[in-house]
């Protein structure tokens, strides 16, 4: 069902996007594309999509604790989408 919705959106967005050349990647696509690399960085426990204070979608990278090296390595935006880093702590089955 979700796939069908995605296809319909792609079709409806088609002509305009082709007119400008490359179609911009959605935040979901960008997150999926980069998450394996992000999850491999020291201390990264999660990658998801949240909202900024102004309500805009943002890629959120979760850390197990404060990690200055990883903070310095994670880009502030990916393909035009903002990235936020949060310390969420180690995630355990409860």
């Amino acid at each position, binding site marked *: 069902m979700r796939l069908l919705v995605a296809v319909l959106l792609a079709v409806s967005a088609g002509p305009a996007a082709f007119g400008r050349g490359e179609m911009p990647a959605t935040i*979901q696509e960008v*997150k999926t594309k980069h*998450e394996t690399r992000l*999850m491999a960085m*020291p201390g990264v*426990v*999660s*990658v*998801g*999509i*949240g*909202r900024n204070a102004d309500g805009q*979608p943002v890629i*959120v990278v*979760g850390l197990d604790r404060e990690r200055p*090296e990883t903070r310095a390595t994670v880009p502030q935006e990916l393909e035009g989408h903002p990235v936020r880093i949060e310390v*969420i*702590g*180690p*995630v*355990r*089955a*409860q």
Partner: protein
Amino acid sequence: MDLETPRSVLRQASRELLARRNVTAIGLGYKVTAGKRTQTLSIICSVARKLPVSALSSPDLVPSIVRGVVTDVIETGPIRALQAPTGRFRPAPGGVSVGHRDITAGTLGCLVRKGGELFILSNNHVLANSNDAQIGDPIVQPGSADGGTVANDRIASLEAFVPISFLVPEPPSECPFARGVIAVLNAGCGLIRSQTRYRIVSIQATNNLVDAALARPLVAADVKDEILGIGAIQGTAQAALGTPVKKSGRTTGLTTGEILQVDVTVDVQYGGGRTARFTDQLMAGAMSQGGDSGSAVLDGENRLVGLLFAGSDNSTIINRMENVFAALGVTR
């Protein structure tokens, strides 16, 4: 009117009033007449169900005046003790302690339907001991950490579970080339005084979507199709960013939160050095602790949206209920 007279009358008359059929509680309060509160202090008799005078025999009638103090009769329904979710419940609703005999305790999520029968829904790591159980194993309510035993408290049998794929560190000697690369990388890290160390990890081909399992009640009447502190379930829904959510769990009871992240990929520790990667998860703020795993997560309209299974100091990780239903082949 002074308070002392009605109080002493209440004390003297309490036994004979409570002896009446239907009277569940007595106390002092202002009498309500025609829906309005009056200034008259009265002895209020609470009844499970208000009956017409004609339906009661005279010994069961509450007199309109007791030793000069007027009475009032109000309907409160049956009064039950508020029971902690760690207790033994028959029938057992969602939100109470449950577990495979070999685990400590988790939470009974809710009842779901498969082939016309009702089953208990919770996590694999609650009902199936994180893949280490056999179909048919006993499930106890309350869980063993809350005193439940197989002999006295068995409520169900493990019916099915979705296996969890764990990230498995490679055994040390497997591949000489990989070991060589790792040794060089870690030597480099040591040289630049970095805390980082690399290790060989084989990433499972399949990421997990759910930590879910089903148990078949031994007796259908021993389970109840509602959730403690929440009540009846009003169907299912899909959660999105900002959806207000609530859960009723074994450890922290009824708590509320909000979906802060969707499309979450997360690595979850299962103890014993085992880690599993989950995709398409929901994340809420802190609203759970150990023992709350398996709780059903509902939206503001009491519709099922997820199955709680993990968390950190300031996050709660939730499987999407549509993924749980699809993986187990169940419905509401």
